């Protein structure tokens, strides 16, 4: 377990939360596909890593789950944001923007020189 995964886990959580915010309730498979689509198919998600991340978010109270049926009438577990989750999306998104903005300042001047 290295730093890479931690960063990845952190960003994956934000992706999941953001996707749930825009799409509404989603099941795991749908979330995975949606994240890939949103990334313009640049991300090759290992779907197996998604479930522990979902469990973590659920344990922390940002999302909740219930069983329902999918558009193809398959039984599936649907995840949706809680109130705390909605707050967390805004907070994490803001933090992320700030982080990338700072990083951008480091990277952009180097290109100019």
């Amino acid at each position, binding site marked *: 377990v290295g730093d890479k995964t931690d960063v990845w886990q952190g960003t994956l959580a934000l992706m999941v939360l953001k996707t749930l915010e825009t799409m509404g309730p989603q099941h*795991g498979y749908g979330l995975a596909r949606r994240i890939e689509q949103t990334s313009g198919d640049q991300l090759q998600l290992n*779907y197996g890593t998604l*479930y*522990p991340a979902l469990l973590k978010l659920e*344990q*922390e109270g940002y999302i909740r789950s219930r069983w329902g049926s999918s558009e193809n009438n398959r*039984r*599936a*577990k649907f995840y949706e944001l809680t109130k*705390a989750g909605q707050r967390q999306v805004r907070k994490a998104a803001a933090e992320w923007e700030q982080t990338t903005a700072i990083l951008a300042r480091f990277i952009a001047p180097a290109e100019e020189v």
Partner: protein
Amino acid sequence: MRRLRGILVRVASQLRGHRANDDFDAELESHIAMHTDDGMRTGLSLEEARRQALVRLGGADQTRQAWRERRGLPWIESPLRDLHYGVRTLRKHPGITAIAMLSIGLGIGANATIFSIVSRFVLRPAPVGSPSTLMSLRVRHEGSPCCDEFSLPLYTDFHEEAKSFSDVAAYFEVVPASISGSGEPERVWGQAVTPNFFSVLQLPMILGRGFVSGEENQPVILLGARLWQRRFHADPAIIGKTILLSGRTFTVVGIVPPGFHSVDQLLNGEFWVPLGNAAQLVPGLGNQTSREFTWLAVAARLKPDVTPEQASMEIQTLGKRLALAYPKAYKESSFVLEQAGTLPQGIKSQVLIFLTVLLVVVLLVLAIAGANVANLLFAQAATRQREMAVRLALGATRVRLCRQMLVESVLLGLGGGVLGTVLSLWATRSLSAFHLPIPVPVDLSVAVDGRVLLYAFVLSVFSGLLLGLPPAWAASRHTLVNAIKGEDALARPGRRRLTLRNFLTISQVAMTLVLLCPTLLFLRSLQGAARISIGFRPERLLTLSVDPRLHGYTAERTVQFLEELRSRAAVLPGVVSVDCTDYAPLSLGHRAESFHVNGAVETGNQEPIADLYMVTPSYFETMGIPLIAGLRFGEETATGPRIAVVNQAFAERLFHGQNPVGQQVIGAGVTYQIVGVSGNVRSRTLGEDIRPVLYRSLRQSVGGDPSLFGYTLLVHTAAESNAISEGVNRQVHALDPSIAIFNEETMEEHVRSAYFLPRLAATLFGVFGGIGLVLATIGLYGVMSYAVSRRTREIGIRMAVGAEPGMVERLVLHQGMVLTLIAIALGWPVAWMLAKLAASFLYGVQAHDALTFAAVPIFLAVIAFFACWVPARRAAMVDPVQALRAE
């Protein structure tokens, strides 16, 4: 916060079990199904679509594993599994487990028992509010042993002038009284205290109130909870009622909590009255306004921001000022400040040495037990090597295996700890049965408390870890291939001369030697103590005490009462003679005074101190003390010239062998005419050097110097003395039904409790030495048996090529005895050095007793010989054909 919630949820799901797993299986199944649907929609076959779905998932099992680790707490789960596995392994070998737990249990039990003594007498804080800031004050006089109590004027000085304390209280520690009411009158002990006493102690009453200022001389009383329960059936309505104490009326104002008996935790006080009542309750108390009369213990509460050091400095300054004002009383005095409730200074160092020796001894017992268990675990580890190797091969890490084995040994330790605690519960109860041969009730009971439990727990875990570590490490050594092949590295003989197992055995036998030497010393000391001539005949003597003074008797009436009682008891059938004294010998001492010969020139030397006893005429016959010269007491009158009988030691010290009869001696301002010389007796303790003793006439002494502890009737009977007790009791109550009878026992019982110290030491060491010996014998036997069973094939080959059974036997015996002799050579000098510590507790035997130091090694060698001989016999009976075929 969110993280905390996450952890809580995980802990909860850890406890909940497997249902959630099924739920996740269903979720995964639906994920794969949906992915497969999508795949088939792009034209793939069902199999191919499902295969790709699984690949993208990264494998269903791996996902499940990742999810499970996230769901619960893996770092809790796997130790739980270790625990489960550990319990199973231990149960699989009930024999080894039982022996190991019993060994550790004996060791921990011994340690917990001794530690409960330490906890009781050294660690336990005084039973008061914030004990750390409650100090006790005493006076130390240059050149005399520590310490003296305060006089009332000195207390007043401190109370008014010492700035380091928020308040200072004084109390007279032993006030005897008889309490009447329903049932037989009972003699009880209490304390007379300044009214601020309980507020200085910060001890609230459980019922009613404490004393308030202005109550110095009021007839009010606080009852101890036990007395309240015993005599008043814990009746809450007692508050405000009056009770009779030594014939005086007192109003009960409060009940003191059950945990409090005295600040020093030794005296067993049961009631408290304001100090002003002391003179009435204790007639002949002394002149309270005198600075010479030191009778008050002092408890002082430190101000919140004052350290004991600062307070100590202040009182030394105060002391210097007092020394200037009262040079006669305090010229060479200093003041001692220490935390209240700690052991009295005079006996502290002795007690600490004794306890240290005991702690070392019980740690030795535990170490011997530990060596046993370590050997057992080693043997077990050797047989489990194949299991370990297989688990290593399957990918378990070495740390993981060690942890597994450590969990097992810690479980053994904890099991032993539980057993040991149970043992120490029993042991402390029997220890509490020992009592001191003194008339003042002293609470010496010990019990297993929280500190003891914690100590036992830490010791169990620690010994478990220590025991498990070496075998765990050894067993998980990388000997993979060998082990799987069935050869085991730990058990291979003859590789290294000093294996760890041999080392353990040697240290075990050596420690046993170190333990057995003091054991035999103390047993010999008990024997020596029994040989000590006490100087009087304890058989067929009944003693019982009364204190008529507590019932308002004057001196004359007391003498009259005792005379009457003597003549009434003397005519009872079976009674030979009856006498009276103020104090039975061997009661740790009572009245003592320095004496000089009347008319002798002042030499400036220290005057010899003699113990004083009041006796009635036929005392010497009744006690069986020989009268060597002169007369006994006779028809002297109470107001006539004082006469005395002295013992030989007195005659030697003061008259240097000349006949003292007819001479006069002076002590405490009283002149005595010596009329006779008696044989020596042990006056205070068994072990003392013979002290000078002066016997004075009871009739002449009760008036001027009444006994604080009442008077003891000595009834000499023709046969066993117990049967007569009821008759004597009846005579006491026929004379005065309100008189309380106390300390009723036979003189033999009294002398037996005077053997307190040698008996306690011999009992403790006897038990610990015995345990150590048994453990070491088992250990040696175990090691040799194991060696033989491991070498069966070797022995078989030796015999097949012509070795005689006798030779094989000698081979094994030789190996065992070499270990034993090395151990004895190592242990003997250590025991020799440690014996010095025990010197001051021995009676009639030298610390370096030749018999002890010769007998113990021989004894140990003989025991070791038999422990090795049994396995050696077994080795000799090995059938070579069987042995070779078995492997």
